[in-house]
């Protein structure tokens, strides 16, 4: 029994991104289907994070358009992106180091909290009940990610691999339809990588979340992705199932270098 991959949910068309004279991305097009694990790979400086930042609304592409669930945008607004159900994690962990694991993940519920600041501060009206509901949701994530023992630990005291997990937890707290993961496995040891792979696949399978991930480690990517886009110097040089990509001449050249 395998999951059902649906229709195209996110369609990136002819995106180019320039920083002054530097061309970070040139005419990139690819799409993401519902429920799939889509990887973006490429050597350092290939433009992977820039691509994610365009989808995420952090950068405004110079050309091209992005279509999400039938709505087409020439640039994305980051709050709007979040409200549409696209969440992300960060390569360099943007967690609140002094706050506990629970509080960090709770911040992911921010968009879903309806009561205003005043009610929340005084815990009046629906504020308390709402907080309890959100806390319950966060507890499910903590259970899912197996970090019960660290619930109340300040994030800064946790080892790096666990911080990455908390980062993922915060993104999950948004109940995203699409999850953008920026190098979720970077800097991890083999065991931590295996754990992370399992969590990513579990998220994909249990919640049906569509996953777009950037990764360096070819082995990991090939194992867990359904389809892979390969970037090199801001250009798309390959797109397809892991096996196709692995045998693609240009991809081999980009990764292994060429003899001249």
């Amino acid at each position, binding site marked *: 029994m*395998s999951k059902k991959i649906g229709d195209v949910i996110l369609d990136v068309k002819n995106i180019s991104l320039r920083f002054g004279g530097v061309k970070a991305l040139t005419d990139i097009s690819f799409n993401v289907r519902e429920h799939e694990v889509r990887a973006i790979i490429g050597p350092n400086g290939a433009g992977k994070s820039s691509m994610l930042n365009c989808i995420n609304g952090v950068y405004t592409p110079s050309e091209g358009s992005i279509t999400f669930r039938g709505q087409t945008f020439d640039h994305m607004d980051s709050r709007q992106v979040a409200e549409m159900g696209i969440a992300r994690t960060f390569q360099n962990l943007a967690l609140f180091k002094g706050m506990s694991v629970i509080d960090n993940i709770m911040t992911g519920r921010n968009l879903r909290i309806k009561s205003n600041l005043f009610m929340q501060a005084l815990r009046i009206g629906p504020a308390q009940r709402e907080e309890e509901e959100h806390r319950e949701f966060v507890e499910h994530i*903590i259970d899912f990610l197996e970090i019960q023992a660290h619930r109340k630990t300040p994030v800064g005291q946790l080892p790096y691999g666990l911080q990455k997990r908390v980062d993922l937890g915060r993104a999950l707290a948004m109940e995203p339809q699409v999850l953008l993961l920026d190098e979720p496995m970077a800097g991890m040891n083999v065991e931590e990588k295996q754990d992370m792979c399992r969590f990513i696949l579990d998220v994909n399978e249990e919640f049906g979340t569509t996953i777009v991930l950037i990764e360096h480690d070819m082995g990991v990517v090939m194992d867990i992705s359904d389809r892979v886009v390969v970037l090199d110097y801001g250009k798309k040089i390959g797109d397809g199932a892991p096996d196709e990509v692995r045998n693609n001449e240009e991809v081999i050249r980009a990764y292994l270098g060429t003899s001249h």
Partner: protein
Amino acid sequence: MQTTFPRLLLKHASERPQAPAMREKEYGIWQTIHWAEMAQMVEHMACGLHQAGLTRGEHLVVIGSNRPRLYATMLAAQSLGAIPIPLYQDAVAAECVFPLNNAEVRFAVVEDQEQVDKMLEIREQCPQIAHIFFDDPRGLRKYDEPGLASIEELLASGAVFAKQHPDFYVGEVEKANTHDVGAMFFTSGTTGNPKGVVHTHYSLINRAEAGAKFDHLTSEEDVLAYLPPAWIGQNIFSYAQWLYCGYVVNCPESAATVTIDLKEVGPTYYFAPPRVFEGLLTSVMIRMEDAGALKRKMFHYFMDVARTYGPTKMDGKSIGLGGGLLYALGNLFVYGPLRNTLGMSRVRVAYTAGEAIGPDLFSFYRSIGVNLKQLYGSTETAVFVCLQPDHEARADTVGVPCAGVEIKVADNGEILVKSPGLLKGYYKNDAATAEVLTADGWYHTSDAGFFDAHGHLKIIDRVKDVGRIKGGPNDGAMFAPKYVENKLKFFPHIKEVVAYGDQREKVCVMINIDFDAVGNWAERRNLPYAGYTDLAQKPEVYGLIKECVEKVNADLAEDDLLAGSQVSRFLVLHKELDADDGELTRTNKVRRGFIAEKYDALIVALYGGATEQFIETQVKFEDGRTGSVSATLKLSDAKTFTPVGKAA
């Protein structure tokens, strides 16, 4: 007494339906299951299992950590007259094959994906497994194996059946007799296949009662169940005595949260092997070293006070006005908060068993006001044989025989026991049964020991392990390996020891350092290391361990009987001895013979006088893969002492 476990459950459910039976921490909150709910869950599960085809007298395995639904499964099986077998949840798949085939098990009720995977892995070797039920569905969504279903589905189908046949469950419970087989436990065994120890409802309940009466346990106790339920100790404390007394068993959230949960629950009745007490103490000591100067000073001052007065106070004797005042201050500033941090504020009775406990460790807990005691017993005796009365706890004895027990010391020093809690026999193993259970009704414990002047039993070693030194200056001297090993293990820096010396001219040991304690020690000395193997081979660490060995030698020299057991040479192993590699039993006892074969090169080097030896060993990881570790180990001499008796 016609009691069975299901009858005890029904009694609690009808007498005090709204009293809590179990608590389980889930999603950060302690969820309570009342006796009435428990009884209903058991009824539904029993009906479900009946529909699935579980028959009277058949065996069923339960594999997992302490989960209410797994305990309910044991009750459900017993309600139908089937026999639950709890197996160790950390056993690798291959280790499950023997018990499953030996007992012709068709039903497995397991905790989660990890255990389901194990069952599926060995299905070919155990083709009779027809049903696998799991508690936690996580990760199992895609599984499509025949006979695999969730406990949830089992309960649902059972509920429907129970509604259609309201009298079925009680009818089944009524059929049982107290002398029917109640449960079976597989002993880990240091050699050969494990043996299934068969117990009746009567033997287990009788011992649960003896223990409960000895310590005046009531339905008000709180217990934290965190050790493997396959171990009879945990099973007595969180199952037999739970049902006998009707107290509350608390199930921790996960293995990693036990210390947090312990603090939250604050158990009143606590049971742990020495290594748990040691782990707790080590973590306290490490954290204390990091505390501020004032706190540290206060801690050390009052711990001195506790050492002076605490044990006397715990023995129920007067410590005088001055001592009383100092101790009260210490209690206010240090012992009270410390007990709270350890989760032992409310502990009324705490037991340690399974292994010898170090005198310092033992008196530490007693001196800060924790009523820690020792008991003696085994799987075959349903635990309770000897217990220490409240004011007579000693580190080197295991207490007095408890109600119903008769003890005799055989000529070879072996302890023989008669008790209502004795096993019925080993399953399908009459030869082994005949070896331990003789026609005159005595159970042969294979422990060597004697009664001291106060009537307390003292254990030295396993009878078969007590050996003789052969040749050399100590020719013919008694060699008690476990005694030597334990003495070394009492040092916080040493985790595991294997001693050799029987039929040899001197005693040599292989040592495992305690990675946490020695790692911390190294950090404080700015001693860099790259991991376990590297740390273990540091000359500084050898120096540290050598000191410990020589202290033990000095100590042994004072004992006429055991002066010949002094350690001449030692080495520090490059890897931790591990149950997954077959070097320890599942209850963490060293398998001396197996280790001797595996590390033969090291033993030859120890006795041959070499100063270095290369060794490569296979290791098995938790996920079943294998790898290898290699290192060149140093071998070191240790100073031995002239026996005090001879010098005089």
